[in-house]
């Protein structure tokens, strides 16, 4: 049996919030808003495909005897050297034995799977027992481009062999075509890309199925034999469509990690393959495809041995760690897309002596130091005379690899004077467990993260770039031992662990963002979307809800789809039942589903009136009623209604919509009282956001600024345990928040209350009746009426809540 014997993954520490690209460049490319969700991984300034490939390989080789590795295939289309074998650098960095076959596989995004096939062929042929395949890409695009949004940086490794096989290789089928969806000439930095629709329809959607069919016919298997389907297609909708066409059930389709990482090119099929292996069970069939000028399709069957594979960082660990930034300019600088002034200090000479590098290759590239065989002192750099003052023996050093030894910070600084791409330059002395120390650069950290005594691990990084001669020098840096992203789960952070939310109309726009953000904070989510058209027509579709569920799962969250229509009582009942059946409770209801049928009053046919009232107002009733029952039972609930400025303030051509929206405010006002003693808080949001409902209602320049992401925080707050408010309406748009309320003027009592006033009395008192001076908010009807009948010497502006 031959197959996969280990795997490892690496996704860089840094993630760019895609919204940041839009925020910076939306003025230039407004259409970016369409894809400005989630985050993408990106290399630190000292990372490239080679360093990522090494880090993934280190993860793969954890606990494995490196002398047993007979080959290293490095797969990438973005290797730092065109002529200096990149695999040989990686083999040195990994401290593999000299008698290792190394090769670079590139020139196509399919190179990752092709390299894997070559390794499988090599092991099957018998000359080599174990070959490491490591794939990485640092995907370069120009700024403000859809592909900049879609792409990410990352690496994955698999070890191929015949002993301890965790996934048996059953067979493969490849097709090769000169299908030029994109290309990059040998002297160019960026891809030239053909029309996306053609790439989807004629490329991914034809070529991948052809290879899959070829493989299935060859092996005599069907989709029933595939528990994990791995294929890259950076366009989410097409990815789902291809999977569906291949007959794969949604749970078998391995996430592309679009929401959290982006498409990592050559590495991506292997990265997805690694994530599949992380959750695979013995007996699972994994179908892996690599796409690019054709398609490789490989079929593996997971073995019992997978249970005994040691712990890994893997995809899961990589995604759980890391830091998300909104600093798009930093992203651009790190990728060399802007060239800020570095000052004369940066003009220092940068030539690397290749003779020196060769003599010291183990020290510099593999972080191998020395250990004195006489006194046992580990030391770095390795030197002929032992550093221990009590020893001082000459020529007693044996090789001592430091790369995988844990270390601690002995001293540090953050230096703003020395030249750095990411100032301050953080460096300091690190002390290794068991002995040995040296002064090292720190990376993947900020100055405030570093403390004397904290644990660090060594990582392989690009240490110098010689622009003049086109050379890259590599060495090792210290990185804080990755604190999981969840480490920010400080007590002050609002979380939804253990909570269950139902979001209606969550297949897109605001609802989708609410669902994603809730999930990111630990909430289980029922993603409801009927999948109808914007005006509510059509028979519905499962794909919007499914898509969001897949996104949440890719984030490591829990979600279930529901396709019912809020416009019917049965639909509302079933949604709540989905929550209770799947997750056992329902804590949060966000009534978000909506449609539009804008017409002037004369053209507002009853059908248009009713359709809008049915979805917005009746819809909220249909879902809230069964939800309220569940919440009352458990003594906890958070209900959010969605009103609109159109209802609160009026908008031409939206009488139906405005009536429904203001109706919801009334609904809330009374429901809040019914929920009071069960800790059910009911609040209303009046969002203005770029969504399907507003895309041709709002002026384009305004539309750009109104991302749903701006509305989600207030909605999440209102949905949280920390929210003690009830019966509040909040406007939210592009960072602006205000409370809207029905205000009641101080008023005037005309006459003695014994006899009705005359019409003329009204005319004479109109100013006082109409005055909003000293207006106040009443928390309920009783208070209001009581106040009217015995008006106090009102103090202006006081709330009567």
């Amino acid at each position, binding site marked *: 049996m031959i197959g996969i014997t280990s795997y490892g993954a690496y996704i860089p520490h840094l993630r760019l919030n895609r919204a940041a690209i839009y925020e910076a460049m939306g003025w230039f490319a407004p259409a970016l808003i369409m894809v400005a969700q989630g985050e993408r991984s990106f290399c630190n300034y000292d990372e490239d495909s080679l360093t990522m490939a090494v880090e993934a390989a280190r993860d793969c080789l954890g606990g494995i005897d490196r002398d047993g590795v007979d080959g290293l295939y490095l797969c990438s289309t973005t290797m730092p050297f065109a002529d200096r074998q990149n695999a040989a650098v990686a083999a040195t960095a990994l401290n593999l034995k000299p008698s290792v076959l190394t090769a670079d596989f590139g020139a196509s995004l399919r190179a990752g799977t092709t390299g894997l096939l070559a390794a499988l062929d090599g092991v099957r042929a018998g000359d080599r027992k174990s070959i490491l395949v490591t794939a990485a890409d640092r995907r370069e695009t120009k700024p403000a481009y859809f592909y900049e949004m879609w792409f990410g940086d990352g690496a994955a490794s698999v070890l191929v062999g015949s002993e301890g096989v965790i996934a048996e290789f059953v067979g493969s089928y490849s097709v090769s075509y000169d299908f030029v969806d994109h290309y990059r000439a040998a002297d160019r930095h960026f891809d030239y890309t053909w029309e996306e629709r053609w790439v989807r329809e004629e490329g991914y959607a034809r070529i991948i199925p052809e290879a899959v069919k070829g493989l299935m016919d060859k092996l005599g298997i069907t989709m029933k034999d595939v528990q994990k389907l791995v294929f890259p297609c950076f366009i989410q909708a097409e990815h789902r469509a291809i999977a569906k066409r291949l007959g794969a059930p949604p749970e078998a389709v391995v996430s592309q990690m679009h929401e959290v990482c982006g498409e990592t090119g050559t590495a991506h099929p292997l990265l997805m393959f690694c994530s599949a292996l992380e959750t695979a069970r013995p007996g699972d069939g994994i179908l892996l495809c690599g796409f690019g000028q054709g398609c490789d399709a490989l079929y593996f069957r997971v073995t019992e041995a997978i249970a005994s594979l040691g712990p890994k960082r893997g995809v899961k660990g990589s995604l759980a760690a890391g830091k998300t930034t909104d600093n798009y300019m930093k992203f651009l600088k790190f990728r060399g897309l802007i060239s800020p002034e570095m000052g004369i*200090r940066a003009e*220092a000479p940068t030539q690397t002596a290749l003779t020196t590098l060769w003599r010291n290759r183990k020290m*510099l590239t593999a972080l191998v130091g020395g250990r004195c065989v006489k006194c046992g002192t580990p030391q770095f750099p390795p030197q002929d005379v032992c550093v221990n003052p009590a020893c001082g023996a000459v020529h007693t050093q044996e090789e001592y690899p430091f790369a995988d030894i844990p270390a601690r910070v002995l*001293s540090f*600084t953050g230096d703003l004077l020395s030249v750095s791409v990411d100032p301050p330059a953080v460096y300091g002395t690190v002390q290794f467990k068991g002995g040995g120390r040296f002064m090292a*650069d720190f990376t993947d950290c900020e100055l405030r993260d570093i403390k004397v005594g904290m644990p660090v691990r060594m990582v392989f990084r690009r*240490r110098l770039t010689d622009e003049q001669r086109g050379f890259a020098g590599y060495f090792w840096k210290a990185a804080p031992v990755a604190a999981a992203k969840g480490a920010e789960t400080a007590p002050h952070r609002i979380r939804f662990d253990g909570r269950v939310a139902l979001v209606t109309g969550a297949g897109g726009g605001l609802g989708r963002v609410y669902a994603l953000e809730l999930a990111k904070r630990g909430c289980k989510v029922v993603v409801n979307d009927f999948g109808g058209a914007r005006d509510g027509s059509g028979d519905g579709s499962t794909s919007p809800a499914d898509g969001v569920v897949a996104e949440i799962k890719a984030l490591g969250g829990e979600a279930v789809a529901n396709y019912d229509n809020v416009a019917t009582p049965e639909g509302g009942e079933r949604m709540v039942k989905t929550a209770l059946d799947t997750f056992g409770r329902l804590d949060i209801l966000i009534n978000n589903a909506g449609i539009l049928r804008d017409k002037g009053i004369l053209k507002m046919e009853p059908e248009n009136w009713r359709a809008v009232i049915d979805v917005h107002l009746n819809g909220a009733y249909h879902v809230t009623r069964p939800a309220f029952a569940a919440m009352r039972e458990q003594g906890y609930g958070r209900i959010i209604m969605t009103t609109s400025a159109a209802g609160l303030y009026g908008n031409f051509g939206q009488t139906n919509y405005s009536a429904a929206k203001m109706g919801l405010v009334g609904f809330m006002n009374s429901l809040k009282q019914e929920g009071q003693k069960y800790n059910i808080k009911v609040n209303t949001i009046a969002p203005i956001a770029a969504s399907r409902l507003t895309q041709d209602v709002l002026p384009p320049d305004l539309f750009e600024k109104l991302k749903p992401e701006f509305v989600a925080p207030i909605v999440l707050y209102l949905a949280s345990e920390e929210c003690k408010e009830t019966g509040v309406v909040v406007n939210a748009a592009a960072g602006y928040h205000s409370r809207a309320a029905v205000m009641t003027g101080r008023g005037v009592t005309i006459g003695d209350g014994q006899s009705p006033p005359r019409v003329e009395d009204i005319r004479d008192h109109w100013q006082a009746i109409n005055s909003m001076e000293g207006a106040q908010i009443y928390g309920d009807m009783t208070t209001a009426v009581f106040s009217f009948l015995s008006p106090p010497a009102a103090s202006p502006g006081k709330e009567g809540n």
Partner: protein
Amino acid sequence: MATGIRDKVVILGMGCTRFGERWDVGAEELMVEAFTECLADAGIEKDGIQAAWYGHCLEEVGTGKSATPMAVALRLPHIAVTRVENYCATGTEAFRGAVYAVASGAYDICLALGVEKLKDTGYGGLPNPGSGFGSLTWQWFPNASAPGLFAQVATAYAARHGIPEGDLKKALAAVSVKSHANGALNPKAHLRRPVTMEQVLAAPIIAYPLGLFDCCGVSDGAACAVVTTPEIARSLGKRDLVSVKALQLSVSNGYEGAFNEWQGDHFYTTSKCSLAAYREAGIEDPRREISMLELHDCFSITELVTYEDLHISERGKAWRDVLDGFYNRDGKIPAQLDGGLKCFGHPIGASGLRMIYEVYLQLLGRAGDRQIPDPRYGLTHNLGGFPSQNVCAISILGRYDG
């Protein structure tokens, strides 16, 4: 059996330029400026000098290699001239060469001169050597600046002794405030304005936790000394003599940076070098016997920790002594009476001789507004390189009592 340098050589005369951003002159003119003052002070002619030592560190921004630049600039009469370079100890090394030559009996009168012209780089701070740092070191050692290298002592010192960040920052600020107060009185200093604690603490960070006022300046300057034997000095009519009591050097061997003992919180070389210097000078209790210190205050933290490495302040307690004013001009042992590197800046080759110049003036009672009463021993200290790998030079000078 070696007997040490004590009282074998005295200073016949000294000279020191005004330090600063000397846009008006190059290294050659600075050498002439210091040398002219020195000859007049010594009361000899140029022809009386038999051999010379030239201290110059950064040849790439200065005068280039070898001793010829000084021989040419001063038109020395085809005598023996040697260039020395040993990081920030360069000036003291030139002095050591001249003193040892006289002590050996090979020459009667020798010259030591140090110069550096740093303000020809086009940017602030010391030059960035890049791959000129050494073909192997360049490939792995952090691209560090001097402030960053020394700032690490502060983080390690605070961690080792459990000193709250705010308290350490205050003590460091007090070090700089004290030096500025002294430098304000010195017409040859580069920076002559006193500063307040508030100003120092509010300054921008250069390398955490060091701020702008924790760092010495970068400037141009030269200083020199003519040395001879006590007998010759007397024969030339000199009455009060300043004698060399000790000249010690300690150079790191990689122990600090690569072995597992040093904690990064002090200067191992200084702690050894100072003991050797006290022994050579016959000093038993430095806290009682030393009258003044001219320390290598490239950064406030360097000076602070050096108080401990000189065995004057207790380990982990120097910051308290500083805050108590122990090292102020009116304190028990005044430090940086001339303003130190803090106010003079640090033209590397010149600094060691500039420190000796201040001790020389103080011992002869010629220090004007800065004069302290009846000094007995003055100690100068250079620290070149960086905390984990450096060159430490300590000189002790005193009145010749023979």
